[in-house]
């Protein structure tokens, strides 16, 4: 396997789903089983990603493979000089692990959908859209430049729009799709502005070149402030796509789409793209930017977690949980725990996909009943679903021996260390609270769905375990929620290859004094600050080559070490507390949940109504836009057009008066002239004999006169 082979594989991975999309879209009507082609292509794609993953990690673990070609190029133009907008691939450990995850989950969702979507009248179209989505998502992951990322970013948005609105005959589905797309677009505007800033400064879109120039001291508008702003603008894209506060409102609505879609797009892959973006641009984020990112992440972790406590729709609970977990990852990135954020991204993708597919299985069994208050006791009817759901829930709650425990613990450890170094203890506090809330609402969900007495007897009786194609993905995904795939040591993630060797925090390109204090490179002695940038550049090369951590200061490593066990035990404690509370409330029913809800009614209503975000946005932004559009249309029709028509009316009035004037005065003159000429004509008439010959005589005379006048002698 050469690097070139890997690139070829990557190209195949990217374009195979597109081929599938085109095939199924155009031939889906004629060939009933066209979807099988799409599923086959996805299985092939998955195998290719497996080959890619193995070879990349085995042979080129420390190398970034880049391949590019020029898409649009300009030579020697004013302002910019030479510009080449390149398209290309960047295969680093980050992208190959991510693409593997995407392909795996996509394949499982395809297989799951075969049974889940059976009987839908647009069955083939559904698979076509899934193919389009997989293509777009692969693009985001594999690309080496920000513009192409934006391109696929939008494509992902559109395929998400199509899939959310898949059941377009329901009004709510297209509404949700539209909302998702528009809310995403708000974030994209920010992201695009950031891209404009980058391009304006560096005249390239390629990450590596941007970081290299940045490391050598070129900054947007030559100021660290604007670098922060650029980073935050790019992060806006992530806010939209990863449904972070305050743009998280679209994700719960997006559950209008088919459940496998929710699993693929709105839990595992697309929403993770935002986090992936932040990972990609991590080297250019300043300390200030990271801090704001951490704050947004913390808010996004906390608020949806409180909302999830009271929701009754099984998918809504999972959706808010997703937002909350994404907030976790973003917060982790914000506090500098890069590795753990990405780790959590991967583990979360598997167990959240498992949960969603599990919920899909439940919904399928219950004939599209989604309200958990109407379920119950399904444990006996759906034993396999229950088992996998439980494993995934344990992972989500952060119980030992699961992958979730490792990654979540890592994040909490990171926030803990951050708190101890900077004094912002609020982040670990939020982290632990959310961990507890997560454990609580997940077990509330499990208890209400699978335990207790069935509330809807009729549907319960008809419920049956899902067929093999639906069960298989559940088993695979729940298996992947076990720690063993990532590290041999169930309490120390660093022991495994995943974090120990493959995933490393990239070295920063940000000027030293704009970083977090603990991320300043220690290798540079005090007093030689002016050389900082050059040295950090060298460090980057050497550091990656030897696999040494040089990003963080000694103090940070120390703090992380100290934070490990406290964070672990504390997180375990809060998770167990949450689970116990869930049992107390819903299983043993020692405390009535309803009574508690009544006692703290304002809080309950706030949570139940999702903090009124939708209502507030509707009342402000949407109303404002609609109102201004109405007002402007009125203005356009009445005022602008009115002026035009008014001008016409005035002209007509003037023309009326001039018409009268014309009739009486001017026409009078004309008539006078007419009489005069009539009189003259009476005289001249005598010359009008009607005979050509007379005329000719006159002509001859005139000719003589003219010739005489113009004589040359």
């Amino acid at each position, binding site marked *: 396997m050469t690097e070139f082979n890997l690139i070829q594989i990557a190209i195949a991975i990217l374009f195979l789903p597109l081929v599938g999309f085109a095939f199924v879209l155009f031939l889906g009507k004629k060939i009933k089983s066209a979807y099988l082609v799409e599923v086959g292509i996805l299985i092939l794609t998955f195998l290719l990603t497996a080959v890619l993953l193995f070879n990349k990690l085995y042979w080129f673990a420390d190398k970034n493979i880049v391949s590019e070609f020029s898409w649009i190029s300009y030579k020697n133009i004013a302002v910019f000089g030479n510009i080449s907008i390149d398209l290309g691939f960047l295969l680093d450990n980050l992208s190959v692990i991510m693409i593997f995850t995407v392909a795996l989950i996509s394949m499982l969702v395809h297989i799951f959908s075969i049974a889940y979507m059976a009987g839908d009248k647009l069955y083939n179209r559904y698979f076509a859209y899934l193919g389009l989505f997989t293509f777009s998502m692969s693009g985001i992951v594999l690309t080496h430049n920000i513009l192409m990322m934006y391109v696929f970013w939008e494509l992902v948005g559109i395929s998400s729009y199509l899939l959310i609105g898949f059941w377009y005959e329901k009004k709510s589905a297209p509404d949700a799709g539209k909302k998702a797309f528009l809310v995403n677009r708000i974030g994209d505007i920010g992201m695009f502005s950031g891209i404009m800033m980058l391009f304006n400064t560096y005249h390239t879109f390629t990450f590596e070149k941007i970081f290299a120039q940045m490391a050598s001291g070129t900054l947007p508008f030559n100021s660290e402030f604007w670098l922060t702003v650029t980073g935050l603008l790019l992060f806006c894209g992530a806010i939209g796509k990863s449904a972070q506060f305050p743009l998280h409102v679209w994700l719960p609505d997006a559950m209008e789409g088919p459940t496998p879609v929710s699993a693929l797009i709105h839990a595992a892959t697309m929403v993770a793209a935002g986090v992936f973006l932040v990972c990609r641009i991590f080297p250019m984020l300043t300390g200030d930017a990271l801090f704001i990112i951490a704050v947004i992440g913390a808010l996004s972790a906390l608020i949806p977690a409180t909302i999830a406590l009271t929701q009754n729709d099984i998918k809504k609970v999972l959706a808010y949980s997703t937002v909350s977990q994404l907030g976790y990852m973003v917060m982790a990135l914000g506090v500098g725990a890069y590795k753990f954020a990405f780790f959590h991204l991967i583990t979360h993708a598997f167990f959240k996909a498992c949960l969603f597919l599990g919920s899909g299985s439940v919904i399928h069994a219950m004939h599209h009943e989604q309200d958990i208050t109407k379920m119950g006791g399904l444990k006996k009817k759906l034993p396999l679903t229950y088992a996998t759901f439980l494993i995934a829930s344990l992972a989500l709650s952060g119980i030992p021996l699961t992958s979730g425990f490792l990654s979540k613990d890592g994040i909490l450890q990171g926030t803990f260390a951050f708190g101890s170094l900077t004094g912002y203890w609020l982040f670990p506090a939020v982290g632990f609270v959310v961990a507890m809330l997560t454990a609580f609402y997940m077990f509330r969900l499990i208890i209400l769905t699978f335990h207790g007495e069935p509330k809807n007897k009729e549907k319960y009786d008809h419920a049956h375990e899902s067929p093999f194609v639906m069960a298989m993905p559940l088993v695979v995904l729940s298996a992947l929620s076990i720690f063993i795939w990532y590290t041999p040591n169930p309490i120390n993630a660093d022991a495994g290859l995943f974090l120990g060797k493959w995933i490393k925090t990239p070295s920063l390109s940000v000027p030293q004094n704009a970083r977090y204090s603990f991320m300043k490179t220690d290798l540079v002695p005090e007093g030689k600050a002016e050389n900082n940038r050059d040295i950090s550049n060298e460090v980057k090369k050497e550091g990656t080559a030897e696999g040494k951590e040089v990003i963080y200061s000694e103090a940070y490593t120390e703090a992380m070490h100290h934070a490990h066990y406290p964070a672990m035990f504390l997180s375990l404690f809060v998770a167990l507390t949450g689970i116990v509370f869930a049992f107390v409330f819903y299983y043993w029913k020692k405390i009535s949940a309803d009574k508690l809800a009544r006692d703290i009614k304002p809080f309950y209503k706030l949570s139940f109504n999702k903090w009124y975000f939708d209502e507030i946005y509707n009342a402000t932004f949407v109303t404002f836009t609609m109102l201004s559009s109405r007002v402007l249309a009125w203005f356009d029709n009445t005022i602008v057009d009115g002026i035009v028509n008014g001008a016409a009316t005035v002209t007509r009035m003037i023309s009326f008066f001039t018409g009268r004037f014309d009739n009486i005065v001017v026409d009078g003159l004309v008539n006078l002239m007419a009489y005069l000429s009539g009189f003259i004509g009476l005289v001249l008439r005598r010359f009008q004999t009607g005979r050509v*010959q*007379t005329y000719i*005589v006159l002509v*001859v*005379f005139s*000719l*003589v006169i003219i*010739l*005489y006048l113009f*004589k*040359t*002698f």
Partner: protein
Amino acid sequence: MSIYDIIFYLFATITLVSAFFVVTIRNIVYSAFFLLFTFFGVAGIYVILGADFIAMVQLIVYVGGILILILFGVMLTNKITNVQIKTGTSQIIPAAIGVGLFAGILTATLVNTPWRKIDNSPLFPTTQGLGLMLISEYGVVFELLGILLLIALIGAASLARK
């Protein structure tokens, strides 16, 4: 006075005198015959000017064609048996004054114009040159004239048939 000059004066006299009779004589048939002499005279002038081909065309078309046509016209529109063949004139005096003045002013102009003097170039046959020009440089015009003649033929026929 060379022979060339004599011939010129001869033809000029024939032309002008017979033209004068054409426009003054009252009998229309005589007029037509004098027109024949005018055409001959003009043809002679062409020859003097070295336009041999045009002179031949003048004879063939004018004398052979147009004149005959005119004679036919005379025959068809006058009953020859009648003495009506003499035709009247009108407005002779204003016409004479006007035309006299016109001729005078033209003559004055051409006398007073400083014509460029070019030596008599040697005469040479023109037929080949004309032929080449008609099919090359003036090819389109030539074709158009052909069409025109066709149209005139059809038009004349249809007009006369009415």
